[in-house]
């Protein structure tokens, strides 16, 4: 099959709806297994960290949330670019579906980071380079969501958000690098260790499980939300009406 015909097939909401329907149960089962399994493993079976004690167990939820939130923004910007360049409607739906999921995951990683900070650093919030970067990522998500809500015209909203997401994605490396640089100027002496240096290999295995689980969970949610977008936008087409009301009407 040629590239362009694959592209057209993927761009068809109907084909995507049917294909994703077959994928959904597998994603749900696998992601929940990995997330729950990894969490139980990390909570109860991994030995405590010799420096941080037991608080490091928050890592198994904090790190996956932050990683997936970051990846989700890049996916959103890519979908936006595809929508702008090839005018693929499905990409606009994917983009709209990602924003609330990504924002929730970013919020989650900020919150778990704060709760992790209290027992380890003795304070809820530290203006650490990585935390600050995640906070800015959260702001970028909120900007996209706010812009989308402000438009009444759905197509214009999608295009405007695509432009903003791309501008944001281009700026993210610059922002992260600036924040790193800013932090290196003001590094407080009280934070003497970083996450990775004390991590024992045996502690990483549950992290791999929850990380994969979170990616799959994100994929599952993304499909769920995109399918709802498809139903809402294609509500006047024959295939959607047949699908919802049965073909025998």
């Amino acid at each position, binding site marked *: 099959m040629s590239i362009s015909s694959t592209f057209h097939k993927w761009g068809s909401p109907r084909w995507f709806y049917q294909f994703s329907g077959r994928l959904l149960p597998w994603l749900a089962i696998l992601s929940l297994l990995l997330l729950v399994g990894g969490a139980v493993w990390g909570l109860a079976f991994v030995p405590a960290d010799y420096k941080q004690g037991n608080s490091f167990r928050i890592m198994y939820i904090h790190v996956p949330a932050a990683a997936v939130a970051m990846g989700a923004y890049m996916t959103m910007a890519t979908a936006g670019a595809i929508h702008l360049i090839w005018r693929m409607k499905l990409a606009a739906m994917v983009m709209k579906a990602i924003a609330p999921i990504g924002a929730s995951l970013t919020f989650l990683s900020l919150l778990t980071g704060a709760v992790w900070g209290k027992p380890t650093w003795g304070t809820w919030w530290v203006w650490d380079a990585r935390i600050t970067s995640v906070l800015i990522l959260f*702001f970028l998500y909120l900007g996209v969501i*706010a*812009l989308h809500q402000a438009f009444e015209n759905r197509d214009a909203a999608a295009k405007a958000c695509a432009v*903003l997401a791309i*501008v*944001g994605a281009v*700026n993210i490396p610059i*922002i992260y690098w*600036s924040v790193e640089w*800013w932090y290196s100027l003001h590094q407080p002496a009280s934070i003497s260790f970083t996450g990775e240096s004390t991590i024992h290999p045996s502690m990483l295995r549950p992290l791999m499980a929850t990380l994969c689980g979170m990616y799959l969970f994100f994929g599952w949610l993304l499909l769920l939300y995109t399918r709802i977008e498809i139903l809402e936008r294609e509500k006047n087409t024959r295939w959607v009406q047949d699908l919802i009301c049965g073909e025998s009407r």
Partner: protein
Amino acid sequence: MSEPKLLKLVIAVLHRDIVASLRRGSEWSNPLVFFVMVCALFPLGIGPQPDRLADLAPGILWVVALLASLLATDSLFRGDFDDATLEQMLLTHQSLYPQVLAKTLAHWLVTGLPLSLLSPMLGLLLHLPGEGTVPLMLSLVLGTSVLSFIGAIGAALTVGLRKGGLLLSLIVLPLYIPVLIFGSSAVKAAIEGAAYLPQLAMLGVFFLGALAFAPLAICGALRISVDQ
């Protein structure tokens, strides 16, 4: 289009925009008044001790200048959008890129540049140490031009919306962060007696990057806003 013609177009748009905003007055004076007023609020909020103010002055001056530039950005395309000049700009076969570039530069000349020129006076009010004055001006001259370009993207995206103002700040502020970091750090470095040229060089890099790429995003955003 030949080069002299392109240059003529840029100059024509620049001239028209600058004359129009100078005639209106409020467009260039309001950000300045805002800058002065908000800077005057800080001593009232944190107390009049000169050493404390001096410590905070680089950050305060930069954040307030950033906000003043942000507030001015909302009006960048508003007038042209309302009287359909923007639509004509898009319809004519003259390329949009130089026109957008000229409009953004004109906007910076009537907002960012006056802010930078006024900043030493506000530095005095906030007891900014003397070594910081020149870096403050230089970093603001470079930095506000980047802010104008980034802000113009947001203004172009929100120009078709009725309640654009607050939304504009939500989408643009996170993108301002690198400029703020390097701008205020240049002033701080100068006060501490360290080299501040590296920070200014970074702002220069940001300016060149914004000059090259921001007009592309602005053009795309304007098309979306006018088409809807």
